[in-house]
């Protein structure tokens, strides 16, 4: 049985390395939810994601979403640009995951 657990430990170690390189460890579960919502929306929308849609789709409060966006912007993961359709609306663009 020791060998079995050693193999599981090796697998966990590999996953640990992957998570470390993804650079997502310092995010809380709520922040991660917002982050993955942005990723999913970025895949389907050109030119950036609408913040109101991120709030709706993530199920998080507006303040949590804004805090997360600030954290992600400071980390250089996302960028905020002004919407060409509505000057009061900001669009979220994904820069990089790592």
């Amino acid at each position, binding site marked *: *049985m020791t060998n079995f657990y050693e193999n599981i430990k*090796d697998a*966990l170690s590999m*996953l640990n390395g992957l998570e470390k390189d993804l650079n997502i460890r310092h995010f809380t579960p709520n922040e991660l939810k917002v982050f993955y919502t942005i990723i999913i929306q970025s895949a389907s929308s050109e030119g950036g994601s609408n913040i109101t849609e991120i709030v709706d789709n993530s199920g998080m409060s507006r303040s949590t979403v804004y805090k997360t966006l600030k954290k992600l912007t400071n980390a250089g993961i996302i960028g905020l640009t002004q919407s060409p359709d509505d000057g009061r609306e900001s669009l979220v663009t994904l820069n990089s995951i790592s």
Partner: protein
Amino acid sequence: MKNFFTVSLTSFVFSSALWIIWSFFVVQIEGNPNWLGSVFYLPHAARILCIVYFGWKAIPALFLAELWGPDFSIFDLESLINVIPALISVLSVPLALQTLDWFGFPLGNTSASPLNKRNYKHIALITMISAIYNSLFVNLMLTKFSMSSQEIGIDQIVRFFVGDMLGTTIVLMVLAMILNPIINSQKAKQSRSIHQ
């Protein structure tokens, strides 16, 4: 034969779980287009992880899960048609490991190992080679024995390759996130025992 039962049970449950999750998504997209499911082929991750970490002992269980997986009925005569493609799919991983071994990259679990199972980049390399074998040999078999109802072209081979790669990537990323608390608690335990 040590741990054979534990390894077989773990491999079968893990592989079956991925089959069920994958089938759920395939049902969700309502087979439109009918090839979309093969673009994120989650079950390939079970082949990779179980064979890389448990070795040959995982092969029989993975093969059984492979037969059971697509239709969830092993006694269905129709699923017996899948025997050879299923076997090829499972064996694509040991074949990839053997290929790397021939090129002087034997599998190990230390940073000094040419192919380190603790390094996800090395797992990605194994995934890529096995995906090439799987897409080529399975489609070759389907063409040779006219087992597919639709015409097999280069696009299907590429789709199988991309599907295996993407499916494994998705599973690894999700596992890395889900297993984070376990990894952290293990590390905390280790550091506590060092300090004591």
